[in-house]
């Protein structure tokens, strides 16, 4: 059955599985202990049985401290394991392939750096880290790929990033897992993981009207950004090459709401540049700094 992710198909996903199986084993042990004791006591100390019930203790500090500290130790261990993996999930490797995702009520629009565009589908190469830079145009969605053991909410008005490195080729389910209205259930599709060769073949087979960076240049000129940012102007605006390394979220806030950080000379482009154009502009700015 395609898309049925018994085993995780990503590097971090495999580690998540180890954590899940370890917790399952621990839970199985605790359940066996609890149900076992329940059964033993139910049989041994049922009302009619002749078992010895002399001097039952009312409390025992040793037992209480024992099982409390045991649970504390086990819990702290599980916390560390989960937290370590979560922090690594949060740190995006620098050589990741950026793919831009825009969620809107009831579909995913995906744009690859070379300009290929997809609706409710995602083609990614095998064995390379891929970074998804996501935002939403209306309500909160959630880009979830269970086979790769990852998901992250996609909030309107800001960028959320998520990364993975697929380890097995194949087709996996893509779901929206944050309730977003009527067709929340229809908002999904398939993620196709392909070998490097197939991926480049697929890229070239897709019709594209220029890379994101080139389209971004067009948006840059259309909105007159070059007036200040081409270095000729006297407005003291920073040349874009110097800001290329700044994370996307910072660029987005600097473009859409400069005034919130006290920057009064730059006009706010909020409402004048759509999410798709903003991604193109991002790609263009980043390409000026020699890419990441």
């Amino acid at each position, binding site marked *: 059955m395609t898309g049925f*992710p*018994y085993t995780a198909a990503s590097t971090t*996903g495999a580690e*998540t599985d180890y*954590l*899940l199986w370890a*917790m399952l084993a*621990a*839970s199985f042990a605790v*359940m066996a202990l*609890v149900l076992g*004791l*329940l059964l033993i*006591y*139910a049989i041994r*100390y*049922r*009302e009619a049985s002749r078992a*010895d019930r002399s001097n*039952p203790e*009312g*409390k*025992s500090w040793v*037992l*209480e401290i024992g*099982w*409390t500290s045991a*649970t*504390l130790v086990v*819990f*702290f261990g599980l*916390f560390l394991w*989960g*937290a370590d993996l*979560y*922090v690594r999930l949060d740190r995006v490797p620098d050589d990741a392939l950026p793919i831009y995702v825009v969620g809107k*009520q009831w579909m995913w629009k995906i744009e690859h750096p070379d300009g290929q565009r997809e609706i409710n589908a995602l083609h990614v190469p095998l064995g390379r880290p891929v970074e998804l830079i996501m935002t939403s145009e*209306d309500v*909160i969605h*959630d880009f*979830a790929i*269970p086979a790769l*053991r*990852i*998901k*992250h909410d996609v*909030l*309107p008005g800001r960028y959320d990033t998520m990364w993975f490195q697929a380890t097995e080729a194949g087709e996996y*389910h893509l*779901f*929206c*897992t*944050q*309730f977003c*209205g*009527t067709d*929340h*259930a*229809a908002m999904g599709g398939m993620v196709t993981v392909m070998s490097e060769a197939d991926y480049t073949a697929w890229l070239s087979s897709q019709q594209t009207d220029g890379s994101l960076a080139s389209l971004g240049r067009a948006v840059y000129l259309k909105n007159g950004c070059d007036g200040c940012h081409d270095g000729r102007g006297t407005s003291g605006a920073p040349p874009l090459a110097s800001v290329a390394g700044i994370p996307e979220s910072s660029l987005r806030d600097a473009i859409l*709401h400069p005034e919130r950080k006290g920057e009064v000379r730059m006009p706010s482009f909020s409402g004048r540049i759509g999410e798709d154009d903003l991604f193109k502009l991002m790609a263009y700015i980043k390409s000026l700094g020699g890419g990441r």
Partner: protein
Amino acid sequence: MNYLTNGWTIRSWLLTIDHKRIALLYLGTITLFFFLGGAAAAAIRLNLLTPAGAFLSAEAYNRMMTMHGVIMVWFFLVPAIPVTMGNFIVPLMIGARDLAFPRLNLMSWYLFVIGGLVALYGMVAGGVDTGWTFYAPLSTAFSHGHLVAVAVGIFISGFSSIATGLNFVVTIHRLRAPGLTWYRLPLFLWSLYATSLILLLATPVLAMLLILLVLENLFHIGLFDPTIGGDPLLFQHLFWFYSHPAVYVMILPGLGVVTELVSAYSRKAVFGYKFVAWSSIAIAVVGFFVWGHHMFVAGQSLYTSLLFSILSFLVAVPSAIKVFNWLATLHKGYIRFDAPMLYAFGFIGLFTLGGLTGLFLAALAADVHLTQTYFVVAHFHYIMVGGMVSAYFGGLHYWWPKITGRMYPEMWARVAAILIFFGFNLTFFPQFIIGYLGMPRRYHAYPPEFQIFNVLSTAGASILALAYLLPFGYLTWSLFKGARAPANPWGSPGLEWTTQSPPLTENFVEIPVITEGPYNYPPREGLSRHG
């Protein structure tokens, strides 16, 4: 002569300030809401029989799922044990004539009914399509249901919770019988005291949030609207600051009831009294510091998620202490398998499994995969239905003779308890599996490979629905045909068992003086069953 036969006019019931009659008024209202919420659940399960979700349209499914959530959370689970058994038993257990503020108690019932009717109007008139969590900006800018009516209904019923909480805290502090120190209180009162603390401290935040939600919906002032600077995560912070302690409000009374049942039906004092007592308070206090574990993938800051993860592991420790102490109580006991004890055994098993799966969701990396899937649905149903509802039925059967003066039919009750246990497991265990496999929550249609588990779950749900009708049936039957109940049918040492069943309007002929602890059982030989 007892509180039931002391005047039987409409006025004497609708204007009563007797905590026992108010408990019965609540019992009726709670049962009505339980079956309403259950009907919504049945519709959801029927719809999920087929991958295409043919029974309900997407729109209808969303409204049904929201209705199930809102009714069950605010109009059944939060009030259930505190307002029915709590109202009835608290004054009896502490040797008082009534609660500290009887008129406030009646007002709390009226607030609950008015809030319920307003919310029901909202749902019947068209319902809400945002889920019971009302996340902004979906609820504020993109929902076109009757959100304002449902929000106002919940707002009003919130004050009923505050009034009940206030009543219990002041009563337990101020109206205890002479000689009844804190460590001589039955543990059911410790858990109700902890529940009332949460009700008092968490519900006001929900009240403020609902005001902001209604203002945002009516005037679009942009508090949670990201396009004009609002922050959707602020809504989630305030919502979960109430809603996580609220889930402890739902389970703590159940923990108290099970502690009483385990002790009563193994004829043995509760093991580690002080640990069990203070673990209830610990759950109530630490329960306020863990709400962030609902927002691990919602875009919350990394460092805050780490903090909330460690705190969520800590809050699980008191529950573990309670389970271990129950087991130690059973050790060397004289265990009888009456219906309430079957519910208690079911509770211990299911609550432990529910708690353990909660740990899966507290571990950060595991939560990334499991949150927003059916794993979470199964987790909280194991604790709410497997735990809380079992304890509710257990307590109801245990105190039924004291409340109504009638004995329930033992055989039928055991059949119902076992049927509920199996129907429940068949309904919700498969959901753990499809949750791990990634089936998202709140989907009215799903990929075909999940169908087999959904069919099993729906089959289980139909058994569960039938099993829940059984107690409704034979308990009503017992009101008229049940055997007359003696003062102390179970031979339990509680203060409530020293008065007649059903009790006098003023509970005690004269207020008893307490000289020893709550759980000292008379020697084994001196007592026959059904006294």
